[in-house]
């Protein structure tokens, strides 16, 4: 453990302006390094990362964050990353780096191939002379569960900001740890996500377009086994349904899942258990349609249900028909993070959120973009939160 403490003590503070050139170059080089890895196509989330940290994308994000203020990183940022999401840590780190900070990243306790690959790339870049300062000011740490409290406390006592990815329990636990008075916490707690389709638009679509949306929908649902906060579980059909088209759509998703998702017996048993537990527990849930074991859809009989804690796994969709958008507040609760949608205008959701005083729904994205990572996450502008403004008067 002492070696961990030493490596924390040896870190050199290095702060910079958000989107400084060195950080952009580093991420661009990282993109190149990942591209070189032969097996990268086996990992869709790594593959997506090639695009995400490429200079072109980052410059685009920089443009969106244009400011006249003099901004600079807050100092040391402690990243507490979830234990069972392999690649979350790299996004957390990139946020910290892009906002101009030095970073201590707590890696997931579980082993994931993706993490090994990324750390190898980073290590390689750190060995270059160009990035010697980044090497000295950033640290990736993995520590045992039994040492966790001690080391987390130690790092917290030296942090200027913390990013805590929950579980509610993790967030709560970390919040109890004493931090310096000026240290700020950015917490991402447990959330759920939903999807909504405007039938007026959907019913007039050609088959090939429905196929395309089905493919996008598939990625939203099945990436990360439907276990991420941004994975939708409920699908709302708004307006008059066209049974035939709807069935075609769902059938298509199951076919894509059959083709693309690497199901084994454990996935299926977990999924079946999840389904049976839900239909026993919630009287409001109605009949189930099984597309073999590739996709289950469950009808909702009664709209008076709290959907917050109803989550599927490996491809379970709970379906509801609603007449108007103004029925949605019943389902968009505080815990609601992402709404993936088809066929709506931005204005419609703005109005809904305003008139109904909605505390949930931080991301309204097109179907297929549930997993697109943005610097604005869970309603928080991460770059602005992790940097401070120096005012000159």
């Amino acid at each position: 453990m002492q070696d961990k403490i030493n490596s924390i003590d040896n870190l050199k503070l290095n702060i910079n302006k958000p989107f400084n050139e060195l950080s952009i170059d580093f991420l661009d080089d990282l993109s190149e390094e990942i591209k070189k890895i032969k097996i990268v196509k086996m990992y869709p989330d790594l593959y997506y990362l090639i695009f995400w940290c490429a200079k072109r994308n980052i410059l685009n994000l920089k443009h969106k964050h244009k400011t006249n203020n003099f901004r600079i990183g807050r100092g040391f940022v402690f990243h507490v990353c979830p234990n069972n999401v392999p690649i979350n840590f790299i996004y957390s780190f990139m946020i910290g780096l892009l906002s101009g900070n030095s970073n201590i990243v707590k890696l997931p306790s579980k082993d994931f191939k993706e993490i090994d690959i990324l750390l190898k790339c980073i290590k390689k870049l750190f060995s270059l002379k160009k990035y010697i300062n980044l090497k000295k000011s950033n640290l990736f740490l993995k520590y045992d569960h039994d040492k966790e409290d001690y080391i987390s406390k130690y790092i917290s006592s030296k942090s200027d900001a913390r990013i805590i990815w929950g579980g509610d329990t993790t967030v709560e636990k970390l919040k109890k740890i004493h931090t310096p008075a000026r240290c700020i916490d950015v917490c991402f707690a447990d959330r759920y996500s939903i999807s909504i389709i405007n039938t007026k638009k959907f019913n007039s679509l050609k088959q090939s377009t429905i196929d395309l949306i089905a493919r996008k929908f598939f990625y939203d649902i099945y990436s990360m086994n439907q276990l991420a906060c941004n994975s939708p579980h409920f699908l709302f059909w708004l307006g008059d349904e066209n049974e035939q088209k709807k069935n075609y759509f769902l059938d298509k998703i199951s076919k894509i899942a059959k083709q693309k998702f690497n199901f084994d017996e454990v996935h299926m048993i977990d999924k079946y258990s999840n389904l049976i537990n839900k239909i026993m527990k919630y009287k409001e849930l109605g009949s189930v349609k099984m597309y073999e074991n590739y996709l289950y859809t469950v009808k909702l009989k009664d709209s008076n249900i709290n959907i917050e804690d109803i989550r599927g796994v490996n491809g379970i969709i709970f379906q509801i028909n609603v007449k108007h958008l103004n029925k949605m507040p019943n389902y968009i609760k505080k815990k609601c993070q992402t709404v993936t949608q088809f066929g709506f205008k931005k204005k419609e959701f703005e109005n809904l959120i305003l008139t109904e005083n909605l505390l949930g729904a931080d991301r309204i994205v097109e179907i297929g973009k549930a997993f697109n990572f943005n610097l604005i996450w869970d309603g928080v502008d991460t770059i602005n939160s992790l940097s401070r403004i120096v005012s000159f008067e």
Partner: protein
Amino acid sequence: MNYINKFLENSDIFNSKNKKHQSLFTDTLENLTKYHKKKCLEYSDFVKKINLKKGGLSKLHNLPFLPVQIFKFRKLLSINENKIFKTLSSSGTTSGKKSKIYLDKINSENQVKVLNKILSKKFGKQRRPMLFIEKDPVKSNRKRFSASLAALYGFSILASKQCYLLKEDGEINYEILEKFMEKFSKEKFYIFGFTSSIFKDFYKKINNNYLDFKNATLIHGGGWKKLSDIGISNESFKKKIKKKFNINKIFNYYGLIEQTGSIFFECKNGYFVSSIFSDIVIRDKNFNILPNNRKGLIQILSILPTSYPGHNIITEDLGEIRNIKCNCGLNGTHFKIHGRAKEAEIRGCSDAR
């Protein structure tokens, strides 16, 4: 629910592959499905909401089956709460949640009757001294009625005298072992334990230079997951024990805590064989019935569960039915077990560790 007597009256319990029994078994399972549907609201919801017809032409195979994990999540009862006589709970697996099975007096008695019937048919009616590779349950003050304790009590029916090999600290009590061997090893005797304890505490620890185990019949079961984790198969387990202790009669049993009583024993050729009280089906990952000699998920049907709807369960275990002419003389379903389906990585934003 006195249909069970009809099964108990049958003395030919390893002769289940005949038309007469098959149709009785199917009718019984069908009736049990109807019965639980009437008695257990959650089970009835399950049957109504799911229309799982994955059995082709077979009536038996088309009956709805619950996933084994459901007993970890839901309290499923087909009796009034005040009729609960005993609660069985699993030893708990990686997920940390334990299965709970609620028995009334009748169900509990039936479990004992069926287990006795299977054991006496398999090993003979004569009781013999039994060495348990366990701590003495009376001394260790175990309050909960766990799966392991249930098995211990169940198998003690074979014992004329019971001895416990392990001390409270888990170490071997050599004094007891030597006394037991001195007194009983000249004639036939039993050794019973969980597969992992047999391996860990018996096989690994005991120095056998001066002890003679050749008259022993070793019965073990459960907990083989721990062994497969360290890469030891049923076959190599047997070989190792035989080599070290000269024990030739080694019998593995397979069963679910959810279906205590109706267990499956290995025949002399190393196949698990069904009795008239239960049977298995093998399904693929889409729950389609697999033909013989194909590996898939094991579904177990048992006539025993009446106080809870556990008569038809799909497990997380992988196995295959072997269509062979086995010279063991038992006319039941012969099958092999290939361990638990490998646990996939669990991903997600939750607090799981």
